[in-house]
């Protein structure tokens, strides 16, 4: 008899706990939202792009987002300019192989890898803007190894 009563009560309590928990999860999501909403602002697009006489691209292996020594070397040369710039825009790209949505994520991964390197080298993370175009904006439209190698890139532009 007692068990008959206790069971629904137990379930009710459990349900309440779940409710509270899911509310909490919802709150944390809205916090994240406030934090990153400003990234969408496109103020840097209005500013003038700074011309540099340095190579402004780093390249990657297929399905990889790690920087090799050559890339790091190039970014090191860039550092003084980057530190002077108001906004650093990093645009990640992929080659056409593989699926589009996955490549969109992979392009972002590549741009973030460059961002993290810059932050380690003392660039303020606040002025870095990251965007990925996946495989949507290739430099070369051909379907061969050379074109693919050129398309797997992160483009750096300074404002």
């Amino acid at each position, binding site marked *: 008899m007692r068990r008959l009563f206790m069971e629904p009560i137990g379930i009710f309590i459990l349900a309440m706990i779940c409710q509270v928990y899911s509310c909490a999860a919802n709150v944390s999501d809205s916090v*994240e939202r406030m934090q990153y*909403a400003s990234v969408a602002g*496109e103020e840097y697009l209005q500013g003038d792009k700074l011309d540099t006489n340095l190579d402004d691209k780093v390249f990657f292996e297929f399905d990889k987002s790690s920087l090799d020594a050559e890339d790091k070397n190039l970014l090191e040369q860039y550092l003084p300019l980057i530190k002077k710039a108001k906004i650093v825009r990093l645009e990640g790209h992929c080659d056409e192989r593989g699926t589009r*949505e996955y490549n969109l994520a992979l392009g*972002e*991964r590549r741009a973030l890898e460059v961002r993290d390197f810059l932050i380690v080298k003392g660039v303020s993370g606040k002025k870095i803007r990251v965007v990925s175009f996946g495989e949507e904006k290739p430099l070369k*439209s051909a379907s061969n190894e050379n074109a693919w190698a050129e398309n797997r890139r992160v483009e750096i532009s300074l404002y």
Partner: protein
Amino acid sequence: MIRSLSLLFFLVSNSIFSILEIEILKGSDNLSKVAFVPFGIESGIEGNYGSQISKNIEKNMLLFGEFENLAVNEMLSYPSSENDFYYRDWKVLGVDYSVIGKINSVNALGNLNISYSLFNINRRIKILEGEIVGREDNIEGISKIISNRIYEEITGLRGIFDTKLAYVINSDADTYQMCISDIDGKNEQILFTSKAPIMSPDWSPDRKKIAYVSFENGLAEIFIQDLQSGERDSIQALGMTNSAPVWSPDGRSLALVVSFSGNPDIFLYSINNKRLIRLTNHYGIDTEPSWSPDSKKIIFTSDRSGSPQLYEINTKSKRKKRLTKDGNYNARGRYFPDGKSIFFVHGNDGNFQIATKKLSSRYIETLTSTSLDESPTISPNGNIIIYATKDGSNGYLGGITLDGKSRFSLPVKNGSVREPAWSPLLN
């Protein structure tokens, strides 16, 4: 008890009177041959509706290469009713099915009354008889309905001739168009034109809206566009990247990918109260979600193992299961309409091809033979896959029936076509 008795009986009968059994597993590579006899017309009615309708039906039925036809000039007779129909006329020509019909009347409002029949020549029986009333300015629509009925009778699958296709056209470097058309390529409509890339179109289950990703504001953002009014709504960009929206089977929520601080994860987004619920939480890439037909599970791509592989997650318990193990690139999975198999992009020796896999088995079967195949979409009856591929630098859409008997490509468009999305059936 009775059950065990009957089982026993079965065993005994099987062995004592053991009878030769020959197993037939393989079917013919041939297609069924169908004769589309020009529809007759009641004397006194003007116009050539008759041959128009049968030609339309023929075109529909041949659209995906699932049948073979008999040329009109090879026919021995042109019956329009059962009384004039002789099986031997068709048997000698190797015909498997014949379609006949007749325009019975036209009323003052322009409504046509049409009757039609379908015969199985080998079995010498009429397997379908129907009557339809429709307006004379909607011959195409009438033909589609008749085609669906015939297709359903012959194949046992739902007819798909009134479905639509959504796709993205990239006509030059800076022009992207979100388009829809009838499944036969007719009645193309441009929903939205942009200078920035457009991606990932997906139909709402009621076929009234399309969700897609647009870069018009500089980064990936999800829009929902109403097809009737043309109105577009951004679902309010959250995080850095929003992508890969897919409608739940009930149409009330989207599964999508949100990347907060650069880590893409799968979320559920409820359309009414705009709430986000996190489904996955992993530092790897989680993307390309898609719902199981019973909406209990979501399949997605993740590189958590080091290479992109397919996983499924239960939306309630959030329990995850890895679905693919062979090969180092298995991505953008979708369930078959029956939920028992999946199809996806499979990387194999540098080639990317469309493949299928039964959930119950480990074996991956590759369907296509070109090397840059992606974005597969399946017909609502589960019988045909259309996918995007490339010829030189030009993208076009290819298709294949799942028995592998027919391969076709869709008419070439002015520009690179990609990301086909097959609409659901109209219910």
